[in-house]
Structure formats: structure tokens, C-alpha cells
């Protein structure tokens, strides 16, 4: 299989980047998209050129480290999928594949396709936890959580933090990411004590990090590898209003 990659190359955060074309032969349909890029990098090494920097780690769709814009879509042409789960069978022979890094002011480019997503960590830091020290826990079954509540919390907690929601959002809003975490913790009895503080501080940090606001296009839900629903954002808004006006 042969395709042409048009890939964004950028030396470092400060330099100006541009697209470069690479015609790559010898691919197979069973290869993952990242394996195709690995293959390209091996070719580049053979030509004594610098390899393309892109991110990945687990390559099974759970760590959230991979993620690039492929042919105009976050994580490629399929809904609810990570870049590492994308396979070359999704492309046509001879196709030109555009590969761009996540674009968001809050995710500055480090090199080529690698961006800095530490803004997500900064949001988490502002309250995505339960302030209980190790060793202070009561017996596990002393805290009852109904199946529906647990399932709903799990739906939200499934977020892998890849940043596709921000990348695809025309406003680079981090609302889906933030709301998923808030709803996971605030809907559980363990999270109740700090619920108001959590929603106010995390959303404030979200704005401070330079993410835009949500206009409910719904693109994030479609690109989210875990299919996290935008209803979470509405729920976050409700929690936020309640925390602000009622306490």
C-alpha cells in the first residue's frame, strides 16, 4: 500500500512550522496509523534525516497520549476512536493524508505533532480529587452507591484525557474534559463534601488556562474516544450555577 503523508513539521515551540510531503510505500492495511508513521520514520533515518515527533504510549486506546488531526478530523476519520486504534485499512491506496497537531492556544506545540497538554493537569489539580489521606478510609461497603449512580459516574470517569475534545472544538473549549471529571466525583457520595468547591475551582482554572467556551456544537462527543456525552457539560453548568448561587 502506498500513500502520501502531508505532515506538519515544526522544529520547536518558537519556530514557524510548515507541511511537508512524504510518499510512503510498503505499507499494509493491517498496520496501525502510528505504525505507518513508525515506518516512515525508519525511512527518514535511512536518509539521515530527523524523525517526525508524535506522541503515543500504550497503543491500545487508553493512555490518551496519542492524538493528531488526520484528514480534518481529530484522531482520524472514525468516531469514538484514538489515533493508535486507527488502521491503514481506513485509507485508500494512493490517498493523501493530512496530519496536523492539535490546535489550541492552551495546547502549545512543542515539536512537529507534539503538543503540551499540561493545562489539563492544571485543571485536575484544582479539585479533581477527594481530600482524604491514605489510611483514613472507612470500610468499602459502608459507602453504598446504587448501580445507576455508579454506572453514570463511570461513564464520565472513562475520559482518557487525550484532548480531542479541545482539538476539535472551534472554540478550543475544555468543557467536556472538565465536566466529565466534575460529574464523576460530584455524583458519588464520596465527592459530595467538596462538590461546590470542586466545580467552582475547576471551572475557574479551565478559563484561566485559556480554553474557550462551549457552544454545544457536539463535535467533542463525536470525536471523544470514550463517547462521553455533552450532557455532562449541561450538568456541569447546573452544578456550577447551584454552587454559585445556592452553595
Amino acid at each position, binding site marked *: 500500500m502506498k500513500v502520501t503523508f502531508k505532515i506538519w513539521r515544526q522544529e520547536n515551540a518558537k519556530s514557524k512550522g510548515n507541511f511537508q510531503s512524504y510518499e510512503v510505500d510498503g505499507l499494509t492495511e493491517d498496520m496501525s496509523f502510528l505504525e505507518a508513521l513508525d515506518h516512515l520514520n525508519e525511512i527518514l533515518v535511512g536518509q539521515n534525516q530527523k524523525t517526525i*515527533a508524535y506522541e503515543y504510549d500504550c497503543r491500545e486506546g487508553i493512555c490518551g497520549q496519542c492524538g493528531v488531526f488526520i484528514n480534518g478530523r481529530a484522531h482520524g476519520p472514525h468516531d469514538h476512536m484514538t489515533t493508535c486504534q486507527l488502521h491503514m485499512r481506513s485509507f485508500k491506496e494512493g490517498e493523501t493524508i493530512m496530519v496536523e497537531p492539535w490546535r489550541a492556544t492552551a495546547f502549545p506545540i512543542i515539536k512537529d505533532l507534539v503538543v503540551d497538554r499540561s493545562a489539563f493537569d492544571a485543571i485536575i489539580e484544582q479539585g479533581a480529587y477527594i481530600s482524604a489521606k491514605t489510611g483514613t478510609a472507612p470500610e468499602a461497603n459502608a459507602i453504598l452507591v446504587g448501580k445507576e449512580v455508579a454506572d453514570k459516574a463511570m461513564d464520565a470517569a472513562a475520559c482518557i484525557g487525550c484532548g480531542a475534545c479541545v482539538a476539535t472544538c472551534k472554540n478550543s473549549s475544555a468543557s467536556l474534559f472538565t465536566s466529565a471529571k466534575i460529574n464523576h466525583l460530584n455524583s458519588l457520595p464520596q465527592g459530595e463534601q467538596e462538590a461546590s468547591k470542586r466545580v467552582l475551582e475547576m471551572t475557574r482554572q479551565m478559563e484561566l488556562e485559556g480554553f474557550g467556551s462551549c457552544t454545544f456544537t457536539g463535535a467533542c462527543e463525536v470525536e471523544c474516544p470514550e463517547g462521553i456525552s455533552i450532557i455532562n457539560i449541561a450538568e456541569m453548568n447546573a452544578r456550577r450555577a447551584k454552587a454559585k448561587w445556592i452553595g
Partner: protein
Amino acid sequence: MLHSKIPEGSLEKKWRNYQLKSQLINPANKKKLNVIVVGSGLAGAGAASTLAELGYDVKCFCYQDSARRAHSVAAQGGINAAKNYQHDGDSVWRMFYDTLKGGDFRSREANVYRLAELSAPLIDHYVQQGVPFAREYGGVLVNRSFGGVQVQRTFYARGQTGQQLLLAAYSQLYKMKRAKKVEMFPRHEMLDLVVINGKAKGIIVRDLVTGQLKRFAADAVVLATGGYSRVFRLSTLAIGCNGSAIWKAHRRGAYFAAPSFTQIHPTALPQTSEAQSKLTLMSESLRNDGRIWVPKNKGDDRKANNIPEEERDYYLERRYPSFGNLAPRDIASRAAKERIDEGYGVGRLKNAVYLDFKHAIERFGIEIIKDRYGNLFKMYKKITGVDAYKEPMQISPAAHFSMGGLWVDYELMTTIPGLYAIGECNFSDHGANRLGANSLLQASIDGYFVLPNTINNYLADALREDHPSTEHPEFEKAEHEVSEHINTLLSVKGNKTVDHFHRELGKVMWQECAMSRNKKGLIKAVSKIKEIKDAFWAEVNVTGGHQEMNTELEKALRLADFIELGLLMCTDALEREESCGAHFREEYQTAEGEALRNDEKCSYVSAWEYQQGKFKLHKETLEFENVKPTVRSYK
């Protein structure tokens, strides 16, 4: 020579006795003590956050862009705990025994007992931290069964248990970062350990964004760097997982225990091409309801659904009637390999077996199966394009967990004072084979409960010493060596890629040092790996510089260590003249092809000392005072 520091008293009282006797540090003094934690998975993040809560000053490093990526995230199935919520006869003792037996009696009784003992409070801890474990309608926790065990003691959060536990640990870590008790260094990779006067006093790291080498000093160094099965190249591990930190520690004097004990997981997706970088794991929990089979006729090319029931060989159920599809991992993997090697394999490359849910779907209905494994089926479809509700999955064994690792005593300290190894990177609790859902457990227990209770015993003395300084000549020397190492690699400028050599190494390791091993093959492997090492240093081409983000250089540095580690693994496998757990030596088997353990000669933990490129063996004899090692039978 090797002092395991097992406390006095009966098995049940050892941990309590230890805690009673260990030294305490007054809170005002704790903040004067610095601890470095390398790795941010369950062990690393658990230790870093708990140490910070206790008042220590903590620095935590990880090579990923965020602590949340650590590979604990990928564990799917669950975490074991002796809660006996299912009222099915479980207890700490039974869990201890299952784990010891699962490890084929090649681990320390005291360590394993502590693991089982602390498992119940660990579940309490995670529930309190907001982990959305599966629940019954009434609100209580649910359990499921897992391989190698006949009780239901596994707690889970869909097929994403590791992720949920890791996110809890990561959140707790960032809580302590906010409290300014933890400083985080993501995108930093440890490249060397600094030992001053025989004690671990710091590390040299490379900033993966700028390429800058940095020095960090501390009163104690904790390694929580995970497993090294990427030595096989194709494994279930994340691409970045590596053995470099522990290998550097090993070269600086830490003994490496049982390096050849690596687990081959029975239910991964089969390799489909040479370019493949990774074998995706499908949770072992699938074996709860899925049945494993191959066709009874060699080379049966019919589609799975067209092969009638009487022509299917459910070989696990046939060979191990009492455990059936839930036989432990080593046994299930070896049985699959046996069938595949005999020519019964299925799939395009004939390297897989079927995992079939037809009967489970008929029995429980598709909705229940969806509820239990929905996300795994979805994942399977994403990767293979096949709907496993309609036709069986194809699975194949893949390199997975490293039971081996740095030798540690009961306190989880290595042979270098002040250097600790926790989680998968040590050799402590799993013996020669790890039971499913015990890895999240061990990593968490080490990080949250054990280390924070043992490190004080060392740090209480460290308090009386001078604080290490990064200006010390040993730091100077270590940084210089790292820098030289990098420059040498960059200056080879050969004509082969790093991946080329990794594939070569992987092939040798998979062929000779995986599911079954023999003397001839291992001797051959040792010489082949030496050839690979020479070729690597003569022909590798690493493009780009070192003062920039350079993923090629990162890979090369890791591979250089993997090659040396591979050598030690084969050496260890060669030395152990018995079959036990994951270590199956073809020379030592029963007439029926089952492993033949040798308790007379081999009831020890191998601990290797690095001596200028050579390895010297030390043995820690295993004493079994409470259980009698038996032949491990799952028939």
C-alpha cells in the same frame, strides 16, 4: 549476604511487629527530608502522594507528558482483595495461599502474606478516593472471578479498572502538588542513579523536551518504573515502557532478582505483520465466560462458525477439568503455544486460538455479556474490524508482566541503601508467575501502604547525615558518563534503525526465553544477543541531536539497556535448572508435559550482581514455614 529482613513472629503478626519496631520521624523533621520517586503509576503516584501527605518533600518524575499516562492505566480486568464479600470462603490466608501457589512457591511467604493482608484496606482506600467500582443495585460492591482462583475476589470498574485506579492515584498526586508537597517532572527520563558512599543520593535525568541533563539530589530514591517486557519488543506494554532506570540501578550495585521470570499473557491479539509495534491485551476476565478452542483437525480452514461442536477441541477444559478456561496464565499460554506449534493454530498466520462467547451469549443473553465486556468487544472491533458477538475472537499469547525485577528486602529496599523499588519493577510477591488482578494490587500496596511505613526506618538515620548536594563529584561523574553515553550513541552514525535492532532482539528473546526454554537455545541466545549488542553499537543510526526533543534517541537509549537486560534474562533462565511458573525448561517436565519443579535444588530467588559486564549469582533461599510447597495442579 542477602538479608531479607523478615520480621519476627507468626505470619499473621509479622507486619504489625515490623511497624511496632520501625523508627519514627517527627513531623517537623519529615519536611527536611527529600524523596525522589521515579514513575507515576499506581506504585509511584501512590508512594509520592502518601509520602507527601506524611510530610516528606517529594519530587516525582515520569517520561510521559502527564502522570495520568503511566501504564497502570492499561490494566483492564480488576484488582483482588480478600474481602470475602461473596461469602464464598475467601480469607487472607486463602488469598495468600493462592498467590504463593500461583507463583509456584518461588516467593517469600512473609511478603505474600502482607500483600493479602493489606488488600482489603486498599479497596477501602480506593472507594474513598472515588473509584467507580461496579456495584449491585443495592449499592454494594460486585466481584468477579479471575484465573487461578476458585473464589470471587476481583473488584473491577468495567474493563478499565487500571485506568480508574490510576486516575485516583494521579488525582491524589496532584492534590499534593497543589499543596506544594510534590513537585512534578513529566517528560523527564531517569538516565542514571547517583550513589554516594554506598547510598542512593540522587538521579540524573534528561528533560525530554529540551534534551538538557539535570541533577536531582535526595535522601532516598524510589524506583517505580514498571515492567520490562518490551525487551521482547512485541508485548502488551506501552511503547515507552522500559527497563532503563532499574538497569542503571543494577549497574550501580542493585541486585537484579529472577530476571527471567516474565509472564506471557494468554489473551492478547495475535501479531499480523512484521511492522507491528504492540500486541493489544484483551482482559483475562474474558476467560470467565469465553471458551477457548482450536479445531480438532490440523489446518482446518473453515470459518470458526462453520466448524461443528464435535470438531472443536476445548483443550483447556480437556486438560484442566477443574479450572478449565480459568487456568493460570502461564498454563493457559503454554497450552495455546503447544496447540499452535502442533499446527492447530487459526487465523491468517496460524498463530492464534479462538475465544468463543457463543455459549455464554446463549446462556446469559447478549445484554449481560455486553454489560460485562462491552468495551472489550468494542475495542476488539476497532482493532480487527470483527464483531465478536457474532464470531469468536482470535487470541494469542504475548509477553506481559515482569515478575522479576530489582531484588528487594521486606522493606522494599534494594541492595543499595536508600534505593527502593516498588511495584512491577521489583521482585517481591509474585514468584514465578503472577495471578490475574494481582498486579494493580501489588503496585498499590507497595506504594500506598508498605513503602510509606518502611522508608522512615531508613530516613530516620538519614536525618543525621548531611544533605546530599548536586555539586558532589559523584553527580559530576554520573552526569558526565550519561553525556558520554549519549554522544557515543549519536556518533555511531551507522545504517540501521533502532527498531531494526529491537526487532532482532525481540525475535531472539521470544524464540528462546519466552514460554518454553531449553539449554541449547538459551546458550545460543546469549551469543546472539552479544552479536546484536556489538552490531548495535557499530551500525545503529540515531538522527537528530541531543539538545532537543528526540524520540529516536530516547528509543536508542532504552534499547541499549534492553540488550544488556536480555543477556541477563537468558543467563538467569539458563541457570535455573527446573520448571516453575512462567519459567518452563523443556528438560524439566513430566511425561504429560507439565512443569517439573525442583524444590531440593531450586527453592531460591536468584539475585544477580553486576560486575563489569559480567553477572554474579547470589541466592536467597526461600524458607517455607507455614505452607508446604506442593505440585501446582489445576487439573
